[in-house]
């Protein structure tokens, strides 16, 4: 190990209480006298604690997913398919899946408070940020006499669904089976009447509390 690597090794051993007593005391003195070292130790403390917290979150999510199988009436672990077994997510995956898209959120917020309008197309439901599981139903205030284009994007702005809606449709339902949990955005476009943009969730209960 290089001297720099040995230095980091010493810090992490100090933080985990793994240094011999005399070296622990020496390290404490060094920290008190050296603000740069003190900051370094604080940074590594933050990171190591964070690594443990992320690990705990992932494990606890896994246990919750085992419990969920009972709630859904699927308690037979032996017969569980590989596909079902893979349906657990780590914290960083969930953070990515529920990450808001800043530009979209800002447009939605402005439109909802009436600062900005994207046209005269009016959608009664779904409400912004509604939570769905298997399907989403749209209801227009007034059907329009032209075909509409519906697109759904995930939190990474990847288009996951594109569908034409026939002219004069007032209500239609989209199947969400196969969609992963996460935050999504739907856009309903009309050439004449503009566009409506809103967000929705699938399994919002899985959203990390930081959002």
């Amino acid at each position: 190990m290089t001297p720099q690597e040995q230095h980091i090794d010493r810090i992490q051993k100090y933080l985990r209480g793994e240094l011999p007593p005399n070296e622990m005391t020496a390290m404490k003195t060094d920290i008190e006298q050296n603000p740069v070292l003190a900051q370094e130790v604080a940074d590594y403390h933050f990171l190591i604690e964070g690594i443990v917290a992320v690990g705990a979150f992932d494990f606890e999510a896994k246990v919750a997913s085992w419990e969920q199988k009972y709630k859904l009436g699927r308690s037979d672990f032996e017969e569980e398919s590989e596909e079902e077994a893979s349906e657990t997510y780590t914290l960083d995956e969930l953070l990515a899946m529920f990450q808001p898209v800043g530009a979209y959120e800002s447009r939605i917020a402005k439109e909802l408070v009436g600062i900005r309008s994207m046209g005269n197309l009016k959608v009664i439901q779904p409400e912004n940020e509604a939570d769905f599981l298997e399907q989403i139903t749209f209801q227009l205030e007034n059907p329009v006499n032209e075909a509409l284009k519906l697109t759904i994007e995930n939190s990474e702005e990847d288009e996951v669904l594109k569908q034409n809606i026939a002219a004069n449709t007032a209500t239609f339902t989209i199947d969400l089976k196969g969609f992963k949990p996460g935050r999504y955005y739907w856009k309903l476009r009309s050439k004449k009447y503009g566009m409506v943009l809103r967000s929705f969730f699938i399994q919002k209960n899985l959203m990390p509390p930081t959002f």
Partner: protein
Amino acid sequence: MENSYSNKTKLLEDIQKGDEQLLERLYAQYRSEFIIWAGRRYNCADDTSAEVYQRAFIILYYNIKDGKITELKSSLKTYLFAIAKNVFRERFRDKHNKTSDIEQGAAIQEVDYDIDETYKKEHQKKVVARLLQRIGEPCKTVLHLFFFKNYSVEAIAITMGYKDERVVSKRKSVCLKQLRELMKK
């Protein structure tokens, strides 16, 4: 499942390693019995019992992972149910304390402090999760195995296929350094 382990030390070792298949099977093995037992003993709904069971199972795993349980003097079930009794006790105590605090109009400052701490912890978790995502493999796994699962450097060398523990120690320091550099950007 536990019965199929003639050697309790091996069972403990496999739990400590975080063998997920084993953990999931152990979770399933005691769950039904626990729900019935808790329902009778504490007169609580199945959902409450299931919540307590989850919490107790997580604590049991952490205790083994963190080396607080180093040998099984009784069956794993005995440990699990004993932990669950404590979880129930805490829940009842918390419920009682919360009511008392509200009645006395006190502890508001304490609650604010808790919220602040919770927010800080959530923020820390979120920041580090993102950093780990950016740093990628093998750093992510090495750091997870060492700091969360408490694997020894020797065990990490075997798991990750490294030549020896010196490679692991070096890798660990390099990864931590990179993580800090990413954080500072």
